[in-house]
């Protein structure tokens, strides 16, 4: 319904772009916003532009400006900046409606070490809302996990689960002294 959407939209807007919002937390500053925008619809073959204030008809635009920068649109952001902005938006939606679990598959692939660290601490901060299953190759992200599962193919083509402690994940990514605990 219209009111419900309006409420949720306001919460996400605040959580994402507010002064203490997720974007500023992940980038250490800057400015971000989600805005309603008019959409172009086709009704009986005619192009009609919807009214952006009509909550049930409008589209959503994302604006993100890292500290000290003025990109004209999110397409100008770098690979890592895009990933961090997407994580900030996801966590903002999460806050408005947490689900009991969240799966993140190599979300930190494009991040440098400093951003990987920030990403890991944001995940930790959200554990009061939800539980996380995080797939990663980054050691820093592994350090933020309470428990690690290793998946290997000791037998070619067949996946097996092994329990792993952080210090067992070798520098070359292989899992050493595996135990089937």
């Amino acid at each position, binding site marked *: 319904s219209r009111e419900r959407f309006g409420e949720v939209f306001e919460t996400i807007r605040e959580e994402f772009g507010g002064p203490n919002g997720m974007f500023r937390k992940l980038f250490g500053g800057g400015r971000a916003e989600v805005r309603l925008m008019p959409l172009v619809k086709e009704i009986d073959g005619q192009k009609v532009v919807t009214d952006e204030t009509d909550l049930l008809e*409008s589209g959503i635009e*994302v604006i993100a400006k890292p500290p000290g920068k003025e990109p004209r649109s999110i397409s100008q952001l770098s690979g890592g900046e895009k990933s961090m902005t*997407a994580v900030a*938006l*996801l966590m903002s939606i999460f806050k408005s409606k947490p689900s009991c679990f969240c799966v*993140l598959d190599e979300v930190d692939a494009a991040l440098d070490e400093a951003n990987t660290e920030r990403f890991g601490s944001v995940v930790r901060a959200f554990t009061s809302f939800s539980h996380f299953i995080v*797939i990663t190759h980054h050691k820093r992200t592994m350090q933020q996990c309470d428990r690690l599962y290793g998946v290997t193919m000791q037998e070619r083509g067949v996946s*097996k689960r092994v329990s792993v402690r952080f210090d067992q994940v070798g520098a070359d990514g292989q899992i050493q002294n595996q135990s089937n605990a």
Partner: protein
Amino acid sequence: MRLSKLTLHGFKSFADRTEFTFDDAVVGVVGPNGCGKSNIVDAVKWVLGERSSKSLRGKEMIDVIFAGSAGRSPSGMASVTLTFDNPVEDDSVEMVELDLASDEDPSLACGDVAPESIGQAAAELSEDASAPQGGNAAVAKRRRRGLPIDADEVEVERRLYRDGTSQYLINARRCRLKDIRNLFLDTGIGADAYSIIEQGKVDAMLLASPLERRAIFEEAA
């Protein structure tokens, strides 16, 4: 309500029965390239009702069944189970409308509750509330839980056999995909919910069109 366990058997590269328990807040999954980590994500999407084989990186749905390897023959079935802890959240009474006259075989009709609890719910009914006259609707009383099933543990399972037969089960009783969807309504859990970010798709929400983004926001509403 929280996810406590994921079990795969014969699903993609998980030929043997494999369990992952989630007793901790943040569980990491690590391992070399190609060893089966993203197959776990596919398993979660599949059991929650994913119907597109392409979005599970296959050509046909049969591709999710273990296809064999150098030393093993193919499996005859793929099965994935999600187990949830579903404790009573508070004792306030909640009135739930039950859809008792489903058009399928009643023992399969699950709706919000597994069939045996329908009997249980009906028994509670006669004690305390007057049934609305006529029609099939019944009203039952039960304590509030995360998932609308009166059970401390809820297991959701999906199976696919090589002959193409596909089944959904809630607490070991067969049900429909619609029942799974009803179960998770309003929880933010679903095959294409915002709470599952696949490999390489972290930017998808930013790159989506304004209309697609709107659909994501609506899901959270």
